């Protein structure tokens, strides 16, 4: 069945360092969404990408959709402690979630 893998599974960074999580699908996606889940919280929608090669930015966050629409990435520039949480990509009409990347930011 449809699988969406993310790497790395865990990432610890020093505050101020950059962070990237990668999302890979076993099949072509019509669109991809990204969600953030703070510790003890629930997933919250961040952004949606639809077009091949699309790049979108939200302040320090940059989202990219691959040319083949089978992969995506989220890059955070100069991490802050508020970036702590688990980042999920989601494909196939948004309900197949990736395995998630847990980010810890050390002050």
């Amino acid at each position, binding site marked *: 069945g449809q699988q969406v893998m993310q790497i790395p599974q865990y990432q610890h960074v020093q505050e101020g360092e950059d962070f990237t999580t990668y999302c890979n699908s076993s099949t072509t996606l019509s669109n991809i969404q990204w969600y953030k889940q703070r510790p003890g919280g629930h997933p919250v*929608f961040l952004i949606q990408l639809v077009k091949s090669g699309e790049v979108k930015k939200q302040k320090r966050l940059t989202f990219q959709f691959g040319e083949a629409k089978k992969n995506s990435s989220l890059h955070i520039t100069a991490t802050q402690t508020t970036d702590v949480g688990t980042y999920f990509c989601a494909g196939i009409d948004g*309900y197949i979630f990736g395995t998630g990347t847990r980010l810890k930011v050390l002050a």
Partner: protein
Amino acid sequence: DTAVSQTPKYLVTQMGNDKSIKCEQNLGHDTMYWYKQDSKKFLKIMFSYNNKELIINETVPNRFSPKSPDKAHLNLHINSLELGDSAVYFCASSQGYQGANTQYFGPGTRLTVL
């Protein structure tokens, strides 16, 4: 006002018991979902309803039965609870179920089976 609400927030129960989790959304959305998040944080779709009709039914034991009395509510009933059912259960809703639809999640119900 909370957009997607779930009750209860915590549920501790013995193996073999039957329990229900309730979900309500006030966003006017047509589609609602139940997800299970295990201890490794994997988030897996269980069910989805669109306008009270079941549209997604993943490989879930038939001890789990969803019920949607109207499009604003989606409840989850679990029979004969097992240790492996311990997890956080999230309800979510979206405008539709096809194409690009943002999902709004409830706060989650942490189920612990002893």
